């Protein structure tokens, strides 16, 4: 019951995708995808590789440009308008599969760069904010190291903290644990679970079905660039409607 207590079912969605299509050259990566995400909702997107799930969330903060359909974030439409892109990106944090930390900057500098450059936060205040989030992800002692001196799990937690320093309302996770060694997956998932419990709106592309089961409000299954089905986790795992979903779940839940 507590799971969806942050979700306000009546309010307008914070993210609304309407018939979004995307082509890479002549290859269609997204086929008229519709998706609504409400404030505080946790959505897990899964599907076989090449199904367009990463492309889907990369369209939301315009790391990829969709060619048809509409994307609204907090009512603002994502178009070529540079000002809109900037406003939307300030509201959305993103965590990547390969962390993408800035290797020439220390952990602390990675975290303070965004607030200092885009929000004119003073250095001391930015550092205070950075240390706050480093404590949240439980690695304040690594603040003065360089990213490559950390383990993969630590780097990914720094990346999460870097996004949080921008104080976003929505967080996108693009396979955040896929590049990690098994023993490090848990520490990153734990951080994400804490974040979910704090009420953050999250869209997570992942193969971690345990995470989906415990954290998600809804699970979206994609294949061949289409949204095949979307349901709350109990229904999705217990009684999938579509044949393709069943086949996919059979494959990844077998062992």
């Amino acid at each position: 019951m507590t799971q969806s207590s942050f979700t306000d079912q009546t309010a307008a969605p914070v993210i609304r995708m309407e018939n979004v299509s995307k082509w890479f050259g002549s290859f269609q990566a997204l086929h008229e995808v519709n998706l609504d995400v409400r404030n505080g909702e946790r959505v897990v997107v899964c599907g076989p590789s090449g199904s367009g799930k990463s492309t889907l969330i990369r369209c939301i903060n315009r790391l990829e440009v969709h060619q048809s359909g509409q994307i609204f974030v907090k009512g603002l439409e994502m178009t070529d308008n540079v000002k809109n892109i900037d406003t939307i990106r300030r509201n959305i944090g993103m965590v990547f599969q390969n962390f993408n930390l800035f290797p020439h900057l220390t952990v602390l500098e990675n975290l303070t760069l965004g607030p200092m450059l885009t929000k004119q936060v003073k250095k001391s205040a930015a550092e205070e904010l950075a240390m706050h989030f480093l404590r949240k992800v439980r690695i304040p002692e690594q603040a003065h190291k360089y990213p490559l001196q950390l383990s993969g799990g630590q780097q990914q937690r720094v990346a999460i903290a870097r996004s949080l320093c921008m104080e976003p309302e929505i967080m996108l996770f693009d396979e955040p644990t896929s590049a990690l060694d098994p023993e490090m997956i848990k520490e990153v998932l734990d951080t994400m679970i804490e974040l979910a419990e704090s009420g953050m709106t999250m869209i997570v592309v992942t193969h971690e079905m345990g995470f989906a089961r415990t954290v998600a409000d809804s699970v979206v299954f994609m294949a061949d660039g289409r949204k095949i089905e979307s349901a709350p986790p109990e229904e999705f795992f217990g009684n999938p409607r579509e044949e393709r979903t069943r086949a996919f779940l059979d494959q990844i839940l077998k062992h």
Partner: protein
Amino acid sequence: MTSVSQHPVAKPAAYNPDAKIPALVWLKSNLFSSVWQSLLTVIVAAVLIRFCWFVLDWGVINAVFYTADPDTCRAATGACWAVIVEKHRPMLFGLYPYAEHWRLVLMMVIYLVTIVVSLSPRFWNLRLLVPLWIVATSAIGVLMFGGVFGLRYVPTSEWGGLPLTMLLFTGTVLIGMPIAVLLALGRRAPLPVARSVSVVFIEALRGVPLITILFVAVNVFPLFLPAGVEVNKLLRITIGIAIFFACYQAEVIRGGLQAIPRGQYEAAASISLSYWQTTRRIILPQALRICLPAITNHIIAAMKNTSFVIIIGLFDILTATTAVMQDPLWRSFYIEAYLFVALVYLFFGYALSLYARQVEKWIASGRI
């Protein structure tokens, strides 16, 4: 193989990482490990010994170090270093008025101090460097030109020697590097106009010999200026060398830019950094670190390209030496004079590469 247990092998000594390798063992494994290697060692040693003996015999034992009389040199079988003692002032300072040479010495001291300070990370602080450069460039300007404080006015056409080489080189790098960065960025810019301008600029100028660019800067460029307007020849030639330098350097920097993974741009975009913020704070620092060895390469080449000022009749250190060696009394000792000039170039070139190596170490240790 069956009786291993009957012949127990002596337990090998524990490995000691700090143990010194005995000299004979080292010689055997590094210089005489096979017949061919021994032969090669002997031949190389023979050539080296012969060469060192020649240098010692010609350069030291039979050399003349100090004399005002060229005949003393002619009588000796060794080198005549006296020619350098005798002619060092016109070689080092060119046509600059003889009585004013102290100004150039002072200028070089100020120049070297400024450069050394600017290159040390501990002084990398704009509040120190900006005033330093303002003071240093004004002081150097006053010393070189004169015309104030009772100093005699010396036009750029009389500048020469090592100070001229230093100024040309510094000007080339200071003007050329920003152009190079802009051209490299332009070539990868999202705007098609910036891209085509950069490509045309780089390809057109890179395909032309430096001497042609200098010829255009000196002889053709003034034709396009309205009558009465004149741009200083020395400035024109500095910009010419700088642009040539920039075109090569731009391609080096582009290589560095291409090595930056796409994820870095995406991460920067995800924290809503603008194009210029991303370029300046994320991309360029990494790209320049990657291509630092190649950048150094072109900077050293630029130092030597300054000798092309010969085509506008300015006497940099090389041309000044050639001119000085026209003196019939001393002209037969041109080898010693040119060896001296080579040593000066070597000194600056080697200092640059040592510094670049130090910078690579600083980067590796995360200091910069």
